[in-house]
């Protein structure tokens, strides 16, 4: 136990700002202001993988590491679409996931937003449209915001969330 406490003490608070990256905190403060103003302090997101190669999921996970720690800005990922304000959808919508994506969307209470994350979700990306993929998420459910990238970085994700809230 002492070792754990000691390690925590020695690690300190690494949550940004780190020296070279002041912009992230500014971004975060603005994000928090918007979440406070428009979402009463809590913005709940349900991530849905509709066929991604799993790179996008790795970067969503990174948002929760101690550097970005998006929860401090009021953004949190929830286990059920029924608890979500927004769906964060990745992948070129495999046809095998199309029905599940639609049902997840229907299970999300209105008002709701849909964010298409990554090049695949935006336009099919490297996989395009074929017998197994539909391509862009907007061909299955209405999309409010796209965040391109392969995969988008955690910073790009935060910028995307902010852009959505600033509308």
């Amino acid at each position, binding site marked *: 136990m002492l*070792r*754990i406490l000691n*390690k*925590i003490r020695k*690690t300190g608070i*690494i949550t940004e700002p780190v020296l070279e990256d002041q912009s992230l905190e500014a971004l975060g403060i603005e994000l928090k202001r918007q979440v406070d103003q428009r979402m009463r302090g809590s913005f709940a997101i349900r*991530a*849905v*993988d*509709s*066929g*991604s*190669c*799993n*790179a*996008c*999921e*790795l*970067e*969503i*996970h*990174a948002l*929760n*590491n*101690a*550097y970005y720690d998006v929860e401090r800005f009021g953004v949190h*990922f929830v*286990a*059920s*679409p029924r608890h979500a304000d927004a769906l964060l959808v990745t*992948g*070129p919508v*495999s*046809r*095998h*996931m*199309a*029905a*599940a994506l639609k*049902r*997840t969307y229907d299970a999300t209470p209105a008002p709701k937003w849909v964010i298409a994350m990554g090049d695949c979700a935006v336009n099919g*990306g*490297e*996989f*395009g*449209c*074929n*017998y*197994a*993929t*539909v391509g862009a998420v907007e*061909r*299955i459910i209405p999309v409010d915001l796209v965040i391109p990238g*392969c*995969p988008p*970085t955690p910073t790009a994700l935060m910028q995307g969330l902010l852009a959505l809230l600033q509308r």
Partner: protein
Amino acid sequence: MSRFDWLSELLARCEDEHVLVAHGSATQLALVHLLDIDHEDWGRFADVARQQGCRWVALWADQIDVDTFNINVCFEYRGDYLVVRAPLEIRQPVLPSHTPWFPAANRPERHLQDMFGIAFSDHPDARRWTRHQAWPEDQYPLRKNFAVAGETGDDTPGDSDYPFFQAQGAGVYEIPVGPVHAGIIEPGHFRFQAVGETVLNLEERLGYVHKGIEKTAEDRDAAGAVRLAGRVSGDSTVAHSWAACMAMERAAKLAVPARALSLRAVLAERERIANHLGDIGAICNDVGFAFAQYQFSRLREDWQRLNLTLFGHRLLMDCVIPGGVAGDIEGAQVGKLQNQHAALRTELDGLLPIVDDSPSLEDRLVGTGVLSPETAVLIGAVGYVGKASGIDYDLRRDHAYAPYHRLQVESPLYQTDDVASRLKVRAEEINQSLQLLDQLLAELPDGDIAVDWTAPVLNAEGLGLVEGWRGEILCYVRFGEAGRIARFFPRDPSWLNWPALEQLIHDNIVPDFPVCNKSVNGSYSGHDL
């Protein structure tokens, strides 16, 4: 030990079993021995391979003209790879199943059944596997007359009538999970039968993220195919693009500069470390030890940030290209890498003993999710899943490809076969990879980082074999006209390790499923293709 010194023994067994080997070649698929047999002998060959003690590696088909498939199965024995090939008429696409001898062949055979319309007689489980409802049962996407765009509209119904295994009895109940899971992970369906908290049976249903990767690779040029290979499974982008490049470079008989090979290994070891760091944290987090999750995800983030600075991408996508690598590193950058290695060592020296000594972790991880060595051999488990269950195999050591042939690769091995030992294997692999990285950088050869790609002749083919962080990756490529891809088949290690999860979960409690799943960490995308 000379390579393939066991081949004569195998050929003698073939004779005993009346398997006619029409032709053998050590050069057509370089570094791999190719045997041509008749499709009539297909089933008997499985018996021969089993007697020899071969490990089942991969199965793929390839339509070579309007009337004919080539069926290929790959085996490994003592670090040598053997591909056995039989032609099969499309009019009569029936073969004996290898599954009775090699359970690992089960799902791959069902994949061929769905994708090519090849029936496997005596298959113990002939249900569809990769196909849900995106295309009709009597159409086969990997036949050449199937249009890549398909014929279905956007409206694909859900797959609601898959005949799951049933269990009956007093107190037995079912838990369906997925495809959309509670966490931020890939989609798949798990069907549990449980009594109280104890899992009686788990059945996996995958295929939800099937993206037509094998089909959309066709007619691409080499660079396009490698970009796609880098997205077979995003967490293994380096390993998959390396395997694809290796296959194509062997087909084109292209010699890759030594510096490029060393840089590929640097990228591959960095990918291994990043994933191991992330997963060690996640395994601990799945049993509520959040301290480790915060620490290890911090280390992973450091690692990814330096990837971006030095190689231009946080996950190292598109860094490996046909003929070499996309970017070079120079003196100061090498120094940055070496500093990071040293810093990570110091961190791990502090953190790993804490993980190792924690009574709460020990309580949850030791004895959880046991995969016995016998079962591991039977299903052909690879990578850390195999190494934790007594399977001592690592391509970098046992089938050493450049630059690993000049490095000393040590592979951790445990017989304790639980979640804790899979975690230990991964921790030890990080330390091993750090050593390899230091050595690779210290001995970085001078010279070019790539040669110009030259398209190979029609029907040139190659096989790439790489030890990814999950284990052995195989990639087969055959070229068509004008250097375009005619067949691309990547076999992710997840094909072999997903069945392990169904076995090791028996008699565990339902709440331990997440940690058991994470300790195997199969790729859905790499499997579903």
